[in-house]
């Protein structure tokens, strides 16, 4: 049991430091120290994951099979901790706005991240539920953290819908548990394989409820409604964090649950179609709603719905010959690319908002290209990547995912995906147009803007480099994703 604690290392670091921060907050007022500690914890978590990877712990199960440390989990641990690092790094301004709640803010980010990491490594329904709730509750609070009228409303809506979603999820889990008699994913799979016949309705009801619950986290239409409101109301770093980390973990658990527990052919045919349909709906809903948004955060929220739809393509592409590997590794690869890209976009948005008096109106971006060319170039680059244009991370992610679709005989899905790329271009290009093409109404705005904080700039540099590196040399990441999913499907 004690040796199992070793496996918990990455999360434990976060939880312990999170607890420490809650207390330290009372004594330490310097924001930089708190942030430093937080970042150190996240870095430690990443390093610990790396150690687990290299020290031969891969594949170990811990805590009676509740937790597993495989490459899949480690992939997500690193990804999530990285995303959290970026979120913390860009939170300078946010923390200046809430001087009396810094410890809580950072601690909640850490708790939430730990929850997401645990989610990626969970192999037990109860663990999944608790991990999910840990991260959800932390996020509810973080969304409402500004306590202004938008934040509180966003937080409340997120909480209420989230509570309903988790109730639905629990109902699904309850059915699954009652039917199969186990909370362990592999035992569930065993049961379905041997005794599942004739119980498709119940199993599918459970599966549907699980999809609803996890899909809610992943902001897949039609479970996406909270996302725009929460993103809009939340402090922007949190919106960034939600859009990438939450989604990543949700897909991690979707892959794990649906491949490990419900991967039997009895059900797979059904949910393959379900995912394909959801992917389609998500892409269209996200893109259509995004077109008319003027608030860039909200636009990105809807775009994240569409991106979730794109990711769903990978889930749908399961039953083909190599579909399992291809689909799942496609999701991982895409998620990584999407994460860095979206973070890059959000980082710039934060920087611009800081200079802009906190405005997120796309129209106020007019002339930004002249005022701060580098920020604009990075944002434009990130948005172009989000469209899926080369040479960026998402470009290859899309190609990869669409290939999985084609390989599973879902070529129509690839076409829909690319047509949606077209629709998405219409709104992703709007800020680009505003920044570079429109000119600011008044010339005063051309005055030099305050210099953003170094940490934010550094983050921007890092994630942009990430976008570019993944875009130019996707091979490494693809191989990593491949190795990660091989752990599940071997």
């Amino acid at each position, binding site marked *: 049991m004690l040796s199992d604690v070793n496996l918990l290392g990455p999360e434990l670091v976060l939880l312990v430091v999170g607890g420490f921060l809650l207390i330290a907050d009372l004594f330490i007022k310097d924001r930089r120290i708190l942030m430093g500690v937080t970042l150190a914890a996240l870095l430690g978590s990443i390093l610990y994951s790396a150690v687990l990877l290299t020290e031969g712990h891969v594949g170990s199960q811990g805590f009676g099979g509740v937790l597993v440390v495989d490459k899949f989990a480690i992939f997500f641990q690193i990804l999530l901790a990285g995303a959290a690092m970026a979120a913390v790094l860009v939170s300078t301004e946010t923390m200046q*706005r809430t001087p009396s709640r810094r410890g809580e803010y950072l601690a909640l980010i850490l708790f939430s991240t730990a929850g997401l990491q645990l989610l990626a490594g969970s192999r037990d329904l109860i*663990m999944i539920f608790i991990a999910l*709730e840990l991260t959800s509750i932390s996020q509810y609070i973080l969304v409402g953290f500004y*306590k202004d009228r938008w934040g509180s409303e966003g937080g409340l809506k997120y909480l209420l819908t989230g509570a309903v979603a988790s109730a639905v999820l629990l109902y699904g889990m309850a*059915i699954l548990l009652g039917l199969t008699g186990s909370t362990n994913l592999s035992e569930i799979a065993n049961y379905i394989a041997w005794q599942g016949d004739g119980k498709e309705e119940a199993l599918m009801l459970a599966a549907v409820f699980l999809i609803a619950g996890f899909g809610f986290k992943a902001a897949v239409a039609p479970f996406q409604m909270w996302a725009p409101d929460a993103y809009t109301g939340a402090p922007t770093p949190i919106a960034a964090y939600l859009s990438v980390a939450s989604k990543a973990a949700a897909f991690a658990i979707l892959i794990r649950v649906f491949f490990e527990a419900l991967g039997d052919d009895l059900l797979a045919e059904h949910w393959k179609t379900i995912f394909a349909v959801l992917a389609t709906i998500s892409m269209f809903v996200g893109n259509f709603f995004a077109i008319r948004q003027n608030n860039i955060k909200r636009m990105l929220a809807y775009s994240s719905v569409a991106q979730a739809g794109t990711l769903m393509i990978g889930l749908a592409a399961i039953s083909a010959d190599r579909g399992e590997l291809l689909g799942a590794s496609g999701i991982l690869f895409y998620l990584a690319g999407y994460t860095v890209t979206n973070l890059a976009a959000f980082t710039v948005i934060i920087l611009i908002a800081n200079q802009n008096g906190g405005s997120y109106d796309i129209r106020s971006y007019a002339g930004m290209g002249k005022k701060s060319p580098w920020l604009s170039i990075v944002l434009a680059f990130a948005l172009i990547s989000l469209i899926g244009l080369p040479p960026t991370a998402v470009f290859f992610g899309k190609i990869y995912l669409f290939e999985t679709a084609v390989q599973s005989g879902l070529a129509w899905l690839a076409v829909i995906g690319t047509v949606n790329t077209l629709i998405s271009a219409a709104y992703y290009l709007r800020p680009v147009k505003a920044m570079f093409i429109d000119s600011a109404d008044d010339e005063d705005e051309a005055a030099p803007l305050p210099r953003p904080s170094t940490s934010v700039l550094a983050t921007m540099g890092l994630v942009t480099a990430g976008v570019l590196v993944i875009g130019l040399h996707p091979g490494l990441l693809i191989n990593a994703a491949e190795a990660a999913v091989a752990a599940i499907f071997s």
Partner: protein
Amino acid sequence: MSDFGFHLAFWSLGAMTIGGASMILISRNLIHAVIWLVMSMLGVAGLYLTLSADFIAVVQVLIYVGAISVLMLFAIMLTPRAERDNSQNIKTAGPAGLVVLMVMIATMWVAIDTDWGAVREAALTEQARLIGESLIKHYILPFEIGAVLLTAALVGAIALARQDDEDAAIHAASLQAELEGEGAVDPVDVVDPPIAADASDSEASS
């Protein structure tokens, strides 16, 4: 427990549960609704007893009836009388009814139609011990994480409910906007709240 007693207990407790829940639906006052919720919860606790889940029943009574409903009542009491309205949102009630009908068909069908496996006659004994053992052995990790979760919720709830210095201005601004009748606002107007002047922040002053 005799068969008849069992029947009587099930039906009456079931009626209490469902009746309580239905009364929540109907009652116009939020405080009444919470009280009906308590009744429904008690009904559920009773049902747990009929299922020989003594420990859970106790927990149910303690936490739901004892803690959650009191918490809700407190929250309700913090709001003025006008906000204690528990009426239906007629705009959503219609579609909600339709969807609930679908959910009901689905869940009940599954509940009735599915073969749930062998029916065991003997109930679990020594539940409290077993659950406790399970929690610190098999489910130690969820247990610990659950603790963190409660901590996080606690800290978060405090952080939210506590009125910090910087919040006053924000609330005041919100109320001002509210008074000016800005009902629905294009989300474009969302702007970050102003940065609080904080002397303790070394960077803000430098």
